[in-house]
């Protein structure tokens, strides 16, 4: 680890990408992720062999990502919600061609143009597809500027390891806030990419990067093979933080900025003698199903805290399998749930579960 610097979340992603050997970035500025694009614009032209290109649109940026990823080089694009919607076709093509790449979404309120304040309302889009066809992205959700850097590094490594696009799902607060960061040491891919289009030197059969299979039997086979890789990811790459869960009677599930507010709410509730803990998914795909399922065996109920109209709550319910009540504590449109709101919703859940004992 190197010396600490003070960074905005957006800058931390950019610098971590550079240190992960990502020398190709294509993007289009949009608030609240623009500092990432601006940082790459400043730094990449000064690197050996690096390319920064402000594309004419998000659609062209994601297709430039497809091109570079085909050659086996590490590559990234970033945007905020409306721009990530534009990228969905390209993301599906990346998945269909088994190309590793990193896509950053610094979410803002929606739908439509929405606003520029933070949101988590692209959870469905990130975890359930977004583009067409059977595919998943590995989706990582940072909760600090340090994690913006660390999870960017990890996203590149996982993308290469499993030949899949990976997404960093952040939000406007994570992108804009400044915190001290220890930047990851420079490293490059540990994975060979014999599939990459790098020129045959007349020594091997040429590689083809493609997502078009007109034979349904062959297309089916690629889907089944891809889902074997997804099964391995679900088995080996689930990440979450368990906070004060040892004696917890109620469990808050929250990621990103919502998890930070939830921790403050837990501190407040613990002072009042309420045993509340937090499960913080760090990967939302794969979702930490087992951790939620295990928690359901011992807690009396769940609170899903989200900056959306309630999206992750569906995964919480699937994982706890109707064992316990799950309630939503949310704000939308760029608003952030406060400590008071989380305490109030948790207390209301306690009352309904314990019959007004409190």
């Amino acid at each position, binding site marked *: 680890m190197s010396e*600490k*610097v*003070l*960074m*905005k979340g957006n*800058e931390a992603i950019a*610098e971590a990408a550079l240190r992960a050997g990502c020398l190709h970035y294509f993007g289009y500025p949009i*608030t*609240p992720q623009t*500092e990432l694009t601006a*940082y790459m614009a*400043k*730094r990449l032209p000064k690197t050996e062999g690096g390319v920064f290109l402000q594309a004419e649109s998000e659609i062209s940026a994601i297709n430039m990502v497809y091109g570079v990823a085909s050659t086996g080089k590490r590559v990234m694009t970033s945007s905020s919600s409306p721009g990530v919607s534009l990228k969905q076709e390209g993301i599906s093509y990346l998945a269909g061609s088994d190309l590793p790449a990193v896509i950053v979404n610094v979410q803002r309120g929606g739908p439509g143009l929405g*606003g*520029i*304040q933070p949101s988590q309302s692209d959870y469905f889009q990130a975890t359930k597809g977004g583009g067409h066809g059977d595919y998943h992205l590995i989706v990582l959700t940072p909760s600090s500027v340090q994690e913006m850097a660390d999870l960017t590094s990890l996203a590149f490594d996982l993308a290469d390891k499993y030949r899949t696009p990976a997404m960093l799902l952040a939000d406007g*607060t994570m992108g*804009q*806030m*400044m*915190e*001290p960061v220890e*930047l990851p040491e420079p490293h490059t891919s540990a994975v060979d990419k014999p599939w990459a289009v790098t020129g045959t030197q007349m020594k091997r059969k040429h590689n083809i990067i493609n997502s078009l299979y007109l034979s349904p039997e062959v297309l089916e086979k690629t889907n089944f093979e891809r889902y074997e890789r997804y099964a391995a990811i679900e088995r080996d790459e689930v990440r979450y933080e368990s906070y004060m869960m040892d004696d917890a009677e109620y469990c808050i599930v929250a990621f990103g*900025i919502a998890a*930070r*507010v939830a921790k*403050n709410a837990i501190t407040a509730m613990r002072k009042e003698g309420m045993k509340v803990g937090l499960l913080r998914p760090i990967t939302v795909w794969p979702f930490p199903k087992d951790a939620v399922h295990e928690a359901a065996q011992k807690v009396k109920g769940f609170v899903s805290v989200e900056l959306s109209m309630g999206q992750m709550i569906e995964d919480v319910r699937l994982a706890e399998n109707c064992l316990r009540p799950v309630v939503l504590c949310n704000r939308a449109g*760029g608003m*952030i749930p406060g400590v008071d709101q989380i305490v109030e919703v948790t207390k209301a859940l306690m009352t309904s579960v314990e019959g007004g004992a409190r």
Partner: protein
Amino acid sequence: MKRVTLFCGHYGSGKTNIAVNYALALRERGLDVALADLDIVNPYFRSKDSTPELERAGVKVISLPFANSSVDLPALPSQAYSLVQDRSRYAVLDIGGDDRGAYALGRFVPYLLEEDDFEMLYVVNFYRPLTTTVQEALDVMHEIEGACGLSFTGIVNNSNLGAETTAQTVLATSGKAQELCRATGLPLFATTAEKSVAQEGMVPIALQKRPFEA
């Protein structure tokens, strides 16, 4: 002391905090002060966030018509001209980050040069990734000067690591600050530090509150 004080620097260097503190300090001396938020780059953390505190203290606040409205429009307030044209009052200008932000200053330059009673201060945080070395800090300085057409007159060393800042954090950068002063021939206007960690020789500053932080 000059009538007009401009704070420029790399974005995230702490210009806004310094400008707010400086305006309040002038007010404490009983001076008539206006502060202008001319940041056309960053729609989030702004001088305008401190408007209630500034106005309570009697500082006049001039900000962009769309500041904090979530409308991401780089439009300058017409009242900003009063800062350069009305010479009866002290003026503090918070300029947006980097050369991009400094373009906003261009239209006021003829007035500033004609009056010739301004200080243009370069705020630097050596813990910011694009200004960690003296050379990088110099590069940003020159980009800003090129964009606005004015030359800096002093340097404010605002090196910090946010909530993890100690006096030692600040002291560790004094060599770089001195080197930057030597390289530019400019005086060190101040070394600033958050008031709970500030030591002798540092100007203590209060931080703006951000609603989502613990």
